[in-house]
């Protein structure tokens, strides 16, 4: 029987295999050292986050020793951590770092783990170590309640050419999807049609009064702006005038990102519904019931799923050990160690 492996891990393995061709030092884990991590997100709270993904995942094996809200966090290895004290002494996380700066820092060796933006996974140089999770982030268009005419929403859903965006802007990272749950989690995502139908979109728009054909699309993440602009162009071809604005507050629609929060498809769907402002789906006891529940949530086109994207991180070659993220994108740094000093 063939072994199961995920494409993103295949990519990672490819990178790792390439790396293996070059000589490195000790093969046994080293105790000690500091792992330098950079992230885009900025936590302005007085205390470190305890829910969500990323930093909260460190709490199992590390303890916070320094917290500068919005800037920097330092975690130290817990001596009594389950599974043993982590190899690393400390994990230093720098927040609010733009993607471009993160890439440069990784290139210069100033950082060990950096986030990779949409489409960057494929563009990593040969030999670059990369960690990628399963496609756990849903990118979707979410309409504000004031957009009442379902024809507008349906027209936009039909106008978006997901394939082109996935192929070019995302560099085939992740997968095209018209479902809330990704295929790997539900097994039936392919049932939701994702192909664009510009002709039908135009027909729907033709029946709309001119005043309602203009809508604003809010996108806060600058890295996602090219996607929003391509959607606006697709919408224009269908007769809708979509203007991309940097604020989501007050916009008619927004480009949102929601994470899969559980490996249980039913729980994941419920969590997603809450995050997207959809009604809570009934508990589903089977894939078929779950499919029906998901279909019911997507009727009306209040939410238009577009893609499922993985978390992707570029990793400094001095970082050793298993991938520091789980398929859900959770951080698992306890089994990482670093070799050599920081330049």
């Amino acid at each position, binding site marked *: 029987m063939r072994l199961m492996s*995920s494409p993103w891990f295949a990519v990672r393995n490819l990178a*790792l295999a390439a790396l293996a061709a070059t000589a490195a030092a000790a093969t046994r884990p080293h105790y000690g050292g500091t792992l330098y991590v950079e992230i885009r997100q900025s936590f302005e709270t007085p205390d470190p986050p305890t829910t969500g993904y990323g930093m909260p995942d460190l709490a199992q094996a590390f303890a916070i020793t320094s917290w500068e809200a919005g800037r920097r966090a330092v975690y130290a290895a817990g001596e009594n951590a389950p599974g043993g004290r982590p190899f690393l002494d400390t994990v230093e996380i720098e927040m609010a770092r733009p993607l471009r700066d993160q890439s440069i820092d990784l290139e210069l060796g100033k950082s060990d783990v950096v986030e990779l933006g949409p489409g960057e996974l494929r563009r990593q140089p040969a030999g670059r170590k990369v960690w990628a999770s399963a496609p756990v982030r849903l990118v979707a268009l979410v309409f504000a309640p004031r957009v009442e005419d379902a024809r507008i929403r349906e027209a936009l859903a039909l106008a978006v050419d997901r394939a082109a965006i996935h192929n070019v802007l995302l560099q085939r990272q992740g997968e095209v999807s018209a479902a809330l749950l990704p295929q790997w989690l539900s097994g039936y995502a392919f049932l939701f049609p994702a192909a664009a139908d510009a002709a039908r979109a135009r027909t729907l728009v033709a029946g709309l009064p001119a005043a309602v054909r203009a809508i604003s699309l809010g996108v806060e993440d600058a890295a996602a702006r090219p996607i929003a602009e391509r959607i606006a162009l697709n919408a224009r071809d269908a007769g809708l005038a979509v203007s991309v604005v940097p604020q989501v507050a007050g916009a008619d629609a927004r480009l949102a990102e929601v994470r899969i929060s559980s490996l*249980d498809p039913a729980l994941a769907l419920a969590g997603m519904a809450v995050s997207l402002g959809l009604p809570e789906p009934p508990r589903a*006891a089977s894939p078929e019931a779950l499919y029906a529940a998901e279909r019911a949530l997507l009727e009306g086109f209040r939410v238009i799923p577009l893609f499922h994207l993985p978390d992707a991180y570029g990793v400094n070659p001095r970082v050793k050990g298993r991938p520091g993220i789980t398929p859900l994108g959770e951080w698992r740094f306890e089994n990482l160690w670093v070799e050599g000093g920081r330049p």
Partner: protein
Amino acid sequence: MIAAVKRWHAVLCALPFFIPSGAHAADDVNGAAHDLARQTAVFAGPGQPVSVEYRNVSSLGPAELGQARGAFEAALKEAGLRVSDVAPVAELRLTLSENQSQYLLVEEARKGDERQVWMAAWKRAEPAAAALPGMALDRKLVWEQEEQILDVAFPAAGMLVLSPSKVALYTPRENGSWALGRAVPLAPGKPWPRDVRGRLRVTGASFQAFLPGVECGGAAEPSLSIECRAGDQPWVLESGSHATLLANFAATRNYFDGRVATGNGLRKTMAPFYSATSAAEQGRPLWLLAMLDGRTQIFDAWLETVGAIASWGSDIAGTEASCGGGSQVLATRPGNAGEPDAIQAFAIVNRAATPLTAPVEFAGPVTALWPMSATSALAVVRDPLTGRYAAYVITVVCGS
């Protein structure tokens, strides 16, 4: 657009997964096909012709798809429907799919303007271990398990396997496999350090188990028993048939803390090291210690530094096969944990490592390498894909 096929990492099998209950939980593909065929018969009507299209978006191969197809069409026939592309009353599309815990057969049925979707799922089987190719150095798989293997030894009673949580004694079966005789849990009192290491030393029917901060003594016969206590006893590192090194292991780390004593009573505190072995160069004894900085330092009999080797990994073991100068050092390849590893035999000539054999490749990293006999060593390898550990006896075969 059909979602791309995704093959999932078997690590998730260890995670809690959702097992659906209900009408469409089948045992296997046949059961799933039958479930769907029944639904289809009600939808299409008895005796009606239906057209069927098949596609596979799972990691299963054409054989499995063929099996699903055969089962479905047989079930349709059994339910009184005909499969025909001529004037079908309903058009069916059957998709073989999967998620991280189940395989799914998804049927989309269209009759006029009416559309129905049914799904039947069955649990995914655990993947079997892959057969691995041979080695140059002769390697033989002796044991494989999910839990980490720290060491394997072969007392007369069978096979002792030292794991972080237990010591298990396996007895041989007639077909060559091993049956679990008895397993004694280990309760260290506090968590093991990461990259926990352990060593078995068998003496007749009794054995010693060396673990970080814990020393155990036990017997394999008449039944497995073991007694452990916290302690800082040095580990006995035998190298070949002559040299012995006593080295203290850091209780909360994965390395020897540097306190050593040679067989001739010399005591010294060195820099910490991962592994050690003896070698002979032109009859002169040498000690080789794989240091934390990745280099293997060469020491003379007085434990004075005489050289260094930079091209080895952190696990070394010594053999004394009659060929190759009479003294060989088996060493892992320098690389990253998680990468495919290799073991190669070297001789020390002029304080430098000279390869003696081609490297024996492994699919994953070598997590333990202990000398076993004069001509063999035990290597434990972790499969990065499945996460399972496999123990190999690496034998230096002369003349191969």
